[in-house]
């Protein structure tokens, strides 16, 4: 039973024109698995999820959950499914608690103890009017509505958007807890870290096509971080540079790997050689270390770098995007 596919996406195409939509997409989510669905905005994540929920029909191919067609048998599937929409849209005139009660009634639930538990976990006071709530509060209501019936399967579209870092961590805990209970979860995101912490496997989608489906371990191989080490003196930085460049020649020549010095600071790209880098740096006095994690676009760049049979066109495009990201909001996480 462990290998049974709960969610089955089979060569679906939904073409909205202008290269928007999804094209010949296939992947499966096994029972008890947490699958991350990664892709930049507009890649087709929500289009895929809409088909899983039976809101739209694929032009070709098929989608099924528990062996049931997602469009024809949407009502039967819903008995076992919790869904968190990517766009928060409630009935504004209702109060938070009223809305949760309403959804519970619609789902035919009697027991609201799980909803109350979740409200405590996320520190939500649901008594206000939804119209006046912040984005984060609305997101919490969405999360409660998705999880409160204790469904076997969860489909979550960008579940942490709008949540502050503390609540994002609570959410990660919730996913891990649900995973322990054997739930099958598909969650989309454009943030790699979120997926990394919770998922067994990830499917990566770009421009409507599947780039990869693989275990997190495999996907994380070759993932790099940008490290910024500030030494006590400039001479230390120069010394470190000399040692490092000699040892890691092959790395520093690899595409996408930076190595440079700015006064007492050294900025370099670190991959699986992180241990050596840290130990080499530890010979000197360090004032500060910053680690910039990769944006999804940067990650894609490396990913494409590994699979060179992929179209060159896409590669150059993602380099453009990367430099934009660097210039714009290459922030520290």
């Amino acid at each position, binding site marked *: 039973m462990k290998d049974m596919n709960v969610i089955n996406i089979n060569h679906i195409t939904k073409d909205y024109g202008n290269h928007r939509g999804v094209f010949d997409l296939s992947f499966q989510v096994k029972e008890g698995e947490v699958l991350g669905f990664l892709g930049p905005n507009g890649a087709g994540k929500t289009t895929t999820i*809409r088909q899983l*929920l*039976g*809101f*739209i*029909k694929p032009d070709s191919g098929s989608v099924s959950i528990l062996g049931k067609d997602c469009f024809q048998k*949407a*009502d*039967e599937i*819903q*008995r076992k*499914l919790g*869904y968190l*929409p990517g*766009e928060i*849209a*409630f*009935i504004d*005139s*209702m109060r938070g608690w009223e809305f949760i009660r*309403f*959804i519970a*009634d*619609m*789902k*035919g639930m009697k027991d609201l103890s799980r909803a109350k538990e979740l409200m405590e976990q996320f520190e939500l006071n649901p008594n206000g009017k939804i119209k006046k709530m912040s984005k984060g509060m609305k997101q919490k209501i969405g999360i409660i*509505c998705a999880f409160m019936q204790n469904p076997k399967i969860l489909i979550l579209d960008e579940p942490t958007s709008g949540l502050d870092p503390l609540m994002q961590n609570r959410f990660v805990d919730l996913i891990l807890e649900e995973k322990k209970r054997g739930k099958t979860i598909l969650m989309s995101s454009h943030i790699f870290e979120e997926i990394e912490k919770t998922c067994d496997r990830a499917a990566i989608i770009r421009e409507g096509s599947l780039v990869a489906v693989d275990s997190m371990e495999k996907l994380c191989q070759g993932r790099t971080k940008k490290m910024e080490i500030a030494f006590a003196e400039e001479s230390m930085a120069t010394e470190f540079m000399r040692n490092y460049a000699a040892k890691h020649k092959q790395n520093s020549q690899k595409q996408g790997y930076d190595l440079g010095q700015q006064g007492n600071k050294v900025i370099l790209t670190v991959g699986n050689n992180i241990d050596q880098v840290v130990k080499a740096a530890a010979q000197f006095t360090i004032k500060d270390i910053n680690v910039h994690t990769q944006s999804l676009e940067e990650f894609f760049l490396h990913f494409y770098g590994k699979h060179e049979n992929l179209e060159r066109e896409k590669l150059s495009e993602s380099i453009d995007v990367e430099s934009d990201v660097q210039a714009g909001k290459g922030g520290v996480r």
Partner: protein
Amino acid sequence: MNLTLYKKEWKSNWILWVIFAAVLTVYACMIVAMFDPKMGDSLKMMADSMPEIFAAFGMADVGQTLLEFISGYLYGILLTAFPAVYIILLSNKLVARYIDNGSMAYLLAVPEKRTKMIRTQVIYSITSLLALQIYIVAVLLIYSQIMFSGELEITAFLRINVGLFGLWMMIGGICFFFSSVFNDTKWASGCSTAFVVYAILVQMISQVGDKFENIKYATPMTLFQVDGLAAGDGSAWVGCLVMYLIGIVFYVTAVQVFARRDLPL
């Protein structure tokens, strides 16, 4: 039908219903009160001073009995145009609004068939109109009884109202259909409004003079023949039946289209 959703719709739309019921009550009572010979004279004078406008509103040659008086002044335009506005607003809220703002995702992410959800909205649309119809009939009957006891021919009056509800069903079905097929409230309410304005405008023009009389065949409002229903004419009943049929066909089609279409949620 999904009872939870049905109750929710009453809860969030009762104010709209009350507002329209109140406006209609005021008009209904005003017109009945004017049947009083003294007040009626002033109304007659007004009608004589601007015959075209009164004709456009279907208020030309209003007869002498209370029934003719009510049917002329109320059923010509007031009880068709005002409820039509209610229907446009309500239909838009029942489907298109949920699709447009995305909350339909929550209504459909429940273990119920899509057809059941949309049927609930159809039932709400019809019962809310029926409640308005019953209410206004009750107001007219009671108020006429108080003011002019025994003057109203009740059976003929009820026949007119069977026709009026057919008209509401027809407009209701068409507006509900627009609400169910578009992704955007702009389009849904735009088409509904365009249809209602067109239908009523053409009816008004056709009533002004003989020159334009034939364009009455270009508006479905003509199917509602007030005088014919009062007299119990066969052709008036046919018109009435056609209105109900149009209404039902549009409601049913709306359900079918909604159940099969792609929703941008």
